[in-house]
Each structure stands twice: as C-alpha cells, then as structure tokens.
C-alpha cells in the first residue's frame, strides 16, 4: 500500500466484496437513511481498489481483511457496510497475502474508515505466534494491530508483555509501544 501515497493522482474505490449475509429482518424507510440488517452466519472480504492515473489508469487491488461470523447486525450507510458481528473468525492481510488469523467473541467493522475492532475472547495467530488482549483494532491503512488491555504475545523467539498497549504487525513478528515505529 506504500505506493498509494500519491493521492492527487489516485482514485480509491472501496468495496465489501463477496458479502454473503443471510438477512432475517429488513427495515428500509428512505433511500439515504442507514439500512440495518440482522443476519445469520456470513462472511465478507474487505477490499480496496486503487487506480493510478500515471500508470495508464491501472487498477490495483488491496485486500484489507476477511471475516466470517455466526450472527451480525449490519448497517448500510450510503452503500458502505458497517456493523457488529458475533463469534468471528478471519484473516488480515499484509501486502495482499493472508498474514494474521483472528478469533473473537465480537467484532465491529467500520468500512468507512477501514477499521476492524475485535472485543472479548480475542486470539490473534500467525505461524506459531499467538497474541491475546482485551481489545484489538486492525489498522488496515498501516497493516498493524493495535492491542490494548493485558496484551500478551508469545512466539517461538520469545514473549512480549503483559503490557497495556501494543502495536503488532500482521505476522506478529514486529511489535512496538507506538504506531510511529511502523511509520519509519
């Protein structure tokens, strides 16, 4: 995603591709009003498309996350999907490759700002590394997890924590006390 920084020449298009919820209730009133949907088991890919004008309008695809849920309350606001999901499992991506795998009791996805927030019974796995915390936020733009509350990470090369706040890469192989260490 590093090459997507020449903003004036880029057009972004975000989509929740492959969404396959099974709606149980629907309450649309007006077209511009949020649409709330309670759904059963489902899954969704969060994908972002980048178009470069300088490269003859070539379009690039960036996978942000994939999530599966047992039940959810989804909201569609101006065509963008957000919502609360329960008993979730999924993947985050680093340079379009599946990197970290997550499990949690609840998840909140805000696709307008590319954030996925996990809460309760959290386990993040990558290879033999496992991270646990009270709350984890996936910052898709930085490809970094922000974990908070009794954060503990254990892997084949050692352990980190417990600590109040920890930023970790998708593969859990780099951790820091601040997001700035990932911006260097």
């Amino acid at each position, binding site marked *: 995603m590093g090459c997507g920084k020449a903003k004036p020449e880029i057009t972004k298009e975000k989509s929740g591709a492959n969404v396959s919820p099974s709606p149980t209730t629907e309450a649309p009133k007006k077209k511009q009003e949020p649409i709330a949907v309670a759904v059963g088991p489902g899954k969704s890919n969060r994908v972002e498309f980048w178009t470069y004008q300088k490269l003859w309008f070539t379009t690039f695809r960036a996978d942000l996350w994939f999530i599966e849920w047992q039940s959810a309350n989804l909201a569609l606001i101006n065509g963008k999907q957000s919502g609360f999901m329960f008993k979730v499992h999924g993947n985050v991506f680093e340079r379009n490759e599946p990197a970290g795998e997550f499990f949690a009791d609840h998840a909140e996805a805000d696709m307008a700002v590319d954030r996925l927030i996990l809460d309760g019974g959290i386990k993040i796995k990558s290879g033999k590394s496992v991270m646990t915390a009270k709350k984890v936020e996936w910052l898709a733009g930085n490809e970094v997890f922000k974990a908070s509350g009794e954060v503990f990470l254990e*892997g084949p*090369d*050692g*352990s980190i924590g417990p*600590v109040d706040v920890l930023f970790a890469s998708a593969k859990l*192989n780099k951790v820091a*006390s601040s997001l700035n260490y990932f911006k260097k």
Partner: protein
Amino acid sequence: MKRFQLVVFLGLFSLALAQKPIVYKDNAKKPTMIIQGNQGFFAPGENFELSGNVQIKRISASGDLTVETLMTCAKASGNLVRINNKMEVDKVRMTGGIQFVQKGENRSTTASGDSAEYDLKDGLKEVNVNGGVEISFDSQSTRETKKDGKKESAKITSTMNTTSRSATLTFKSKLDDKKREFTELQSAVVRGPIQFNGTQLVKDAAGEKLQKVFAKADKMTFTISGESGNREVKLEGNLEFKQNDGIGEGSIVEGANTVVLQLNEKNEILKLRFKSESPNQVATTITKINSKGKKGGA
C-alpha cells in the same frame, strides 16, 4: 490557567509512571534473557530499539533467577538473534548513563560510563565503555582469623577499581561442574589516563596483612588465563605507584614505566614486577604517612 496546566502535567506524569514498560522475555515461563524499556520496538529474531529505563538482563539458566549480566541505560538499540538455539543480543549501542554489571559465583565486574557497545565476537562477549569510565572488580571470600585464640571467619569483599576514559571488557561463556552455562571475565583493557586502586597481600613474620596500592598509568590490561584462572594486571606508560599499609607506612616506586601484578582469585596482589626502559632505574622510597594520610618524611 496555570493550575489547569499543572493538573494536566501531573496527570500525564502519573500516567507515564503508571504505564507498564514493554518487556521481552526469551521464554515466558523460564526466561534466561529479559529486555525492557518504557518505549520501544522489538522484532525478535532481528532487532530491537528501546528508550527510557532500559534494562537488558541475562539470568542464570539454573532457574534460581540470579542475575548474571545487567545492562542499564537511557537508550539502546541492537540485534536480537538466535545463536546456538539461544536468543542473544548483539551489536547493542547504549547511551545515557550506562551501567554494566556481570556477576559470577564469588566475583562481580561493574562498569559505568556515558556510552557503551556490546558485541558477540568469536564466541566471546565484548563490552566497550566510553566517557568517564569507572570499573570495579569485586571478589567475595571468607577469611579465617584468630581472635583471643579462637578461629573466626568473616566475609570479605576485595575491590580493585579504576577510573579512565574508555575500556574494553571481554567475557567468556563456560560450563560449571553441573554443565550449567555461566559467564566469566576474561580480560579488561582500560585506556587512560587511568587511576588504579588495589589491595596487596603482604606476608611477614606477624602473619598476613592487606595494604592499599594506588597507581596512575596510561593503560591497564587485566587478563585471566589458563585452567586455574591466573590473574595478571599490567600497568604501563607514565607509571606512578604507591603502597600504603594503612597504619602509617608506605612506599613510592619511581623510575619504572611498567608494573606487572600477579593476583590471587580474590584479586589481591601477590607479586609485583617492575620494568624500566633502562636497567637500575627503579627506586623505592619508604615514606611515613601522617594521621591525615599525607606523605611525611623519608
């Protein structure tokens, strides 16, 4: 407004104090290495960068949590790599009031300075300390004495210390009888001008007594070699050498440019060998020292 600023400052200050440091352990349940700091970055298997109350600890593998090596400083960065199936730090650059402590079974080495580098070289661990360097080589032992015809034993700490501008300490990993790994000082090169303080063990008809030795030189080399751990200190360049028995008599050695001190395992000086650039230059002056410790008559 000022009160509000003070409240905000105190709030942030207490928050900073309450925040847990970021701590790395090579093994969560039975660590042999612990690295921590207030802020920082870890990529185990690659590198690390820390600031604020940085501590790098190597703990005895025997499970008794005895600290073997402790490095403290304000800022540190280096490699955190797996060597011989064990996590090690290498090429560590430390700044801001550094302190290095290495403890053995009955002896310890302490070094402090403004900055330091810690490297692994050919199986040895090397520490380079710079800027206002103070090094202390301590040895703990039990000495038996006779008082009113009764034998008494007392724990004694013998200290040999130096102040200088820079120093290089080299440590070697060894295995004890139970095949447990421990680290021991192998050599120390101290570059000056240096000041040296040591203790000399003097045997005479009255028995054994300890006397203080003071020296100034351009360079000191302390080596521990052989299976039995022969200890030798070499002081060279612009040498000034004084002995003081602590009860009023001392000697000044002049004309020598090098002295080699042979030590026992408690770092007490057993033998002295002076060298000069030409023969018959070394002269010893016995001096009386008055009650304030100043040099008296010849």
